[in-house]
């Protein structure tokens, strides 16, 4: 059951990711990215991270990607032009990328023996009663507002700065 779920959504994620890369039109890429995020959300559920899954959909798919699509629609940029290709990138990038992927996969296999398994609802940790996943809103919230309170506050400042910066950048100059 879990394996099936994993395989289905991993496949969706990979296909969508490839689509992100190969599609020429930004909107197609954006929607494929949304697909990746949705399937990742399901995988998070499989890993017992309910809250993160919900946040993934709400924040990433629901807000960030909508922003992207907005911009793409506003600029109404068509398919990208195939010009000014930098050969260095092609010749350096492709082999490097393959090598990198191979390395990563190899080390992952070497470092994580197959005896550590993921089961649905298997994510339990101290402080949660049996049956309730550790990734629920309660435990995450506790960790967020107790252990990681300071980083949390700092991120709020970060968001504020981002808002101001975005407004300053995107507003049209009044004098002109």
């Amino acid at each position, binding site marked *: 059951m879990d394996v099936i779920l994993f395989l289905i959504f991993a496949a969706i994620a*990979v296909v969508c990711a490839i689509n*992100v890369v190969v599609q020429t039109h930004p909107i197609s890429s954006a929607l494929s990215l949304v697909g990746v995020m949705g399937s990742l959300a399901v995988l998070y559920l499989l890993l017992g991270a309910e809250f993160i899954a919900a946040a993934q959909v709400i924040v990433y798919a629901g807000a960030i990607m909508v922003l992207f699509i907005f911009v793409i629609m506003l600029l109404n940029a068509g398919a990208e032009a195939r010009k000014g290709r930098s050969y260095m990138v092609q010749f350096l*990038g492709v082999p490097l990328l393959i090598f990198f992927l191979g390395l990563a996969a190899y080390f992952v296999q070497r470092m994580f023996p197959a005896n550590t398994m993921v089961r649905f609802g298997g994510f339990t*940790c101290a402080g949660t009663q049996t049956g309730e996943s550790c990734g629920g809103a309660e435990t995450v919230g506790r960790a967020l507002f107790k252990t990681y309170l300071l980083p949390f506050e700092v991120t709020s400042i970060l968001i504020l700065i981002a808002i101001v910066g975005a407004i300053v950048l995107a507003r049209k100059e009044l004098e002109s």
Partner: protein
Amino acid sequence: MMTAVPISWFLTLSAVLFSLGVAGFLFRRNIITVFMSIELMLNAVNLSFVTFSYQHKEVAGHILTFFVMVVAAAEAAVGLAIILTVFKNRATLNIDDISSMKN
């Protein structure tokens, strides 16, 4: 019938997604697409965070993922604003044309 998934599969998937993100970054010219590839990489990293979190029976990974999301949101806001401004000034989204930082 419940059958479990090896944890390494998740990490491998994350690696694959990450490499795809890098590929997008390297081979795409549309600055928005490049930006989206960055988001893709971030997602891949989030997946590995959550996986490690599962492995160590720790919630810290989730917190980290949460922060990555927040940062991604901020980044998207600012980055897209920058893209808008660039498009306003140069009427292009081709990343190879935006190379005024060269010497």
